[in-house]
Structure formats: C-alpha cells, structure tokens
C-alpha cells in the first residue's frame, strides 16, 4: 500500500483543484502525440494528426484528453487504493487496446507531458516539492495500469 504524507495529499489535491481539466487534458495528450509521434499508432481513427497544428485543433484529441483526465480523477478520489481502482483500466489497456506497456513508462504521457503541462499552468506554485508529490502520484498510477499485463 502506498503511503502518502499530509503534504503529498494536499499538494496533489491542490493541483487537481486548480487545473482546467479540458485545457490540461488536451494540451498534455497533444504534446504526447507531437513529442513522441510513435504514440499516434494507437489513434488511427482520430483523423488528421499530420502536424502539430492539426493535432492541437483535432476535436478527437481534445475529447480523448478529457477521457484521460477523468481516469486520473478516479485515482485522485481513491488515492489509498489506486491499484484496485485501476484494475479494469489496466485490463482494458493490456487486452483490448494492447498498448505497449513500455509506453506507460515514466518517460511518456504522464511524466514528460502531463508534468510539463501542469508545470506551465501552475508556474512558480509548482515547486520542486510539489513536483515530487505529483510525480509520485503519477508513478503509482502508471504502476497500477501496468499491473494486469502479463
């Protein structure tokens, strides 16, 4: 079971209370598709992803950004048992979507894109300690999503 300090809980809740889910979801997911273009592999039905401008204005991208943020909110409201909360999501990603589990690696969407977008939104309030708490939360999310892969 993951232990959260009072500071970590407060910091993570604070971040999610301050960010605009639609803006952040779309921006982070767009960045993922732009900065790591091989992730486009999973979104063949999304239409025009030919360049950064097309990606950031693509309505399916925006819609999917919202789906991801909704998923993260589930973890936020169940911080003490993310693993169980994510059991079905993990199965979905491994069996139905067949996402390469390495793409859940800290490298991609969660750390490198979402963290960067949240940092941009929050500015100086995103202190090193707050960043640490947020990245720990994302690490637990990522590990829980990988749990059902075999």
């Amino acid at each position, binding site marked *: 079971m993951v232990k959260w300090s009072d500071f970590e809980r407060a910091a993570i809740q604070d971040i999610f209370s301050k960010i605009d889910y639609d803006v952040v979801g779309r921006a982070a997911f*767009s*960045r993922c598709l*732009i*900065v790591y273009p091989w992730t486009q592999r999973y979104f063949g039905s999304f239409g025009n992803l030919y360049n*950064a401008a097309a*990606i*950031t204005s693509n309505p399916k991208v925006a819609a999917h950004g919202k789906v991801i943020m909704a998923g993260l909110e589930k973890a936020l409201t169940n911080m003490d048992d993310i693993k169980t909360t994510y059991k079905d999501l993990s199965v979905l990603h491994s069996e139905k979507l067949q996402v390469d589990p390495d793409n859940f690696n800290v*490298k991609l969407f969660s*750390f*490198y894109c979402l*963290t*960067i*977008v949240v*940092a*941009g*939104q*929050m*500015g*100086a309030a*995103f*202190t*090193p*300690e707050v*960043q*640490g708490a947020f*990245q720990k939360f994302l690490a637990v999310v990522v590990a829980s999503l990988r749990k059902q892969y075999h």
Partner: protein
Amino acid sequence: MSWMAARSKSDHLTILEFLFVRSLLSGVDKMSLSAKDKATVKAFWAKISSSGEAIGADALSRMLVVYPQTKTYFSHWKDMSPGSAPVKKHGATVMGGVAEAVAKIDDLTAGLLSLSELHAFTLRVDPANFKILSHNILVVLAIMFPTDFTPEVHVAMDKFLAAVARALSEKYR
C-alpha cells in the same frame, strides 16, 4: 569512393571494408537533429539564454528533490537544498555546458569531446541520469516560458537534450 570502383566486380567486401563502411553510416543517429530542429533550438536559446543560471539552478534543485538518488553525486556539498549556493553555482556550470552545446550543435560529438571525457572518466555519472536532468530542464522551461515553450519547441529541445546526452556518453565505453 574510387578504391571501390577499382575492385573487380566479382570481389566481395572484406570484413575490414564492411566495418569501415558501417562506421561511416553509424554517424547517422537514430532521431538526429534536422535543420528545422537546430533552427528552433537556436531561436529559443536566444530568447532564454540570459536566464541560463536561473534555469540551471531550478532544474538541479528539482532533480535533487524529485529524484533523491541523484544526491549521491553531491555528497561533498554542505547544502543540497533548492536554491542553495552550491546548487546555484553548479546549475550555472551545467547551463554553460548547454550553451556550448547550442554553439556546437552541428557536431555535438566533436564539440563536447572534453566534456564527454570529464563525465566518463572523472565524474562517472551514470548516463541514465542525463534523461532525468533533461526532464527537469524541460519542466523549468515550461514554467519560465509558458508561451514560448510550444509543443514544437518542446520536441526540438527534447531531441536536442537527448543528442547532448548521447554526445556526453560517447567516451564511456
């Protein structure tokens, strides 16, 4: 390559020739910097370079807090807390290296040779840490330059820092 033309058609490449040709091709990096990437990096750097020291200090502070295993390299410092004097000084040193890399962007391997030797033989920084520091530099750029750090700039800078890390790892083994 006239020496190849001089061979008779029935000759196959010897092992040596094969290795020579392959060594020429290995200069072509996976995901190497395009002309557009280099232009984007240089233009962005021109905007941000005057904040180099602040960027370096903040990136290093974040690395030490968020990835505490990196503190092992700095156990000789009196104070590893964010914004401390040793952190500020070292942040400036690191960004000085990044500035040099921007100036030598057309041949990072040659340009960063002595830095590579320093990291390989003296500092012996595990190259896995280059990715960690790069990530924190990008976080700082997002905070300090929210409008300029567009997705296009992000991908160019990410590729550039990865190329710098590769150049620094050249001499490791």
